[in-house]
């Protein structure tokens, strides 16, 4: 059963077509990866799903509901959580405050009622905090830096805190934009393990954009390959890896125009 459906999404900025007629499905409880060379439209697709961009054509369905026009906060409330390619933590706040803000979306008391019924709001906050500490901090092994300001943490830990913040949202689908970009081997292995655990122990669906082929092939159930804003292949990691078009897109044919021709030809055939 698919939890997220992207149907024929096209997105352009002025004359630049960032996405052309992209369709994909994310199965519930799977790890789905979107890969592609630089500028292929991966992040544009991600932003169309999380609501930062509004595609000109096509629909995005989440659990069967059309969310194409919903603003990001509404999507967050429905259960889409995400991280960013460049770390987007709230600098100047502690790790705990950052993660608590992730739980913001789960609080039932509104802004004003949290103000008036201090007692109730405080109880709710205490409960959520306890829950976060039990689950997220232990799970991601960041308990020891709970009180640290995030700005001073090493890169790999910042990435982990960002993941913690997204997890605190308890999303139904966790969207990771390049979760291991810029990490060393050890940090990458840790992150891959966490992502697998998120799927296996927490039963969350993971959708990620990633450059690191090794990691994508290791942990993904389903891979989509984008190039020049178009979907050129999809399938199990092994299938995608063997696909000549994917190899060409990644290694390059040495000539962009032949590649474009090839893509055009494929479309005509289809």
């Amino acid at each position, binding site marked *: 059963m698919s939890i997220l459906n992207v149907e024929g999404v096209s997105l352009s900025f002025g004359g630049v077509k960032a996405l052309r007629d992209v369709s994909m499905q994310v199965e519930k409880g799977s790890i789905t990866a979107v890969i592609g060379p630089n500028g292929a439209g991966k992040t544009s697709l991600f932003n169309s799903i*999380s609501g930062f961009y509004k595609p000109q054509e096509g629909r995005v369905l989440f659990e069967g509901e059309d969310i194409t026009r919903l603003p990001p*906060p509404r999507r967050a409330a429905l259960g889409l959580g995400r991280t960013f390619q460049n770390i987007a933590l709230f600098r100047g706040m502690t790790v705990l405050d950052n993660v608590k803000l992730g739980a913001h979306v789960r609080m039932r008391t509104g802004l004003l009622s*949290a103000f008036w019924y201090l007692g109730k709001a405080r109880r709710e906050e205490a409960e959520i905090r306890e829950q976060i500490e039990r689950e997220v901090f232990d799970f991601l092994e960041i308990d020891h830096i709970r009180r640290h300001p995030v700005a001073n943490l090493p890169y790999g830990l910042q990435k982990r805190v960002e993941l913690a913040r997204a997890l605190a949202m308890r999303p139904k689908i966790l969207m990771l934009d390049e979760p291991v970009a810029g990490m060393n081997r050890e940090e990458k292995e840790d992150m891959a393990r966490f992502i697998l655990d998120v799927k296996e122990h927490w039963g969350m669906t993971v959708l990620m954009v990633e450059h690191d082929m090794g990691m994508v092939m290791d942990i993904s159930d389903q891979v989509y390959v984008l190039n020049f804003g178009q979907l050129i292949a999809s399938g199990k990691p092994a299938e995608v890896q063997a696909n000549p078009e994917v190899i060409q897109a990644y290694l390059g044919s040495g000539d962009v125009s032949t590649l474009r021709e090839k893509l055009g030809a494929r479309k005509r055939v289809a």
Partner: protein
Amino acid sequence: MEWLFFFEVSLAGLGTGGLYALTAIAFVLIYKATRVINLAIGEMLMVGAYLFFGAAAGWALPWWLAIIAALIGGGILGIVLERGVIRPLLGENPISVFMVTIGLGSILVGMVELIWTANPRSLPNFFPTDPIFIGDAFLAPKTFWSFVVAAVVIALFLLLFRFWRGGVALRATASDQGAAYAMGINVPAVYSLAWCLAGVIAAGAGILLGSIGGISSEMGFFGLTVLVVVIVGGLDSVLGALLAGILIGWMEAMAGVYLGGEYEHLVTFILLMVVLLLRPYGLFGTREIERL
């Protein structure tokens, strides 16, 4: 005796400084949340003072009700400005938005003059009039009480900013808009909230200022000194705004008494220049602020 005089002048300076700090907080609030340099803050303050005047003298409401009405009016003004003028300019060149706020200031002055004429007025007094003595030093009761009120409001605001969920949403938005948006924080609502709170604070400062020195449509010039305060403090620093407000209030009082009234603003702007030369991002500001 000399020291007593110095002490008295200092206290009076701190009184004005409290008002600078209060208005500067309104300014910083808008800047932090929406990255708009709002030059109309002085005029928003003036409108607040006139709303109080209108409610207290025009409708003959009791003073406390008139204050509540003026504060609510100030908040509504903030929301209307944000939704009507600032929101459509989102994403435009910061200098355009900056210029628009200057225009807004003129429009507000014009509107006030249409309704209440350009004549200076005095506000009904609502402060206790018993003289205040701190040790041997005498302090004008209005100055004392307005400082107390400003201090209480500032403290309240800091608590809100720190602990209230709306305040947390504000801080998150100020820190990283994209992330806040993805975390389920309604960023456009936070924009309105920031302008609304700033409007309320500015109106409150206007009432205090007006009750000390009377009101006129030119009260908005107060905003110019507030601009100096926030630049000295560092545009996005609440702490900087507080300290710079007090410092500049005190320096103006000193200059006014010991050098002569014409030196008040001279000293302020000399301080501005020195601070900008030494620390271009203000005393407590973030380094990577985009300068206009």
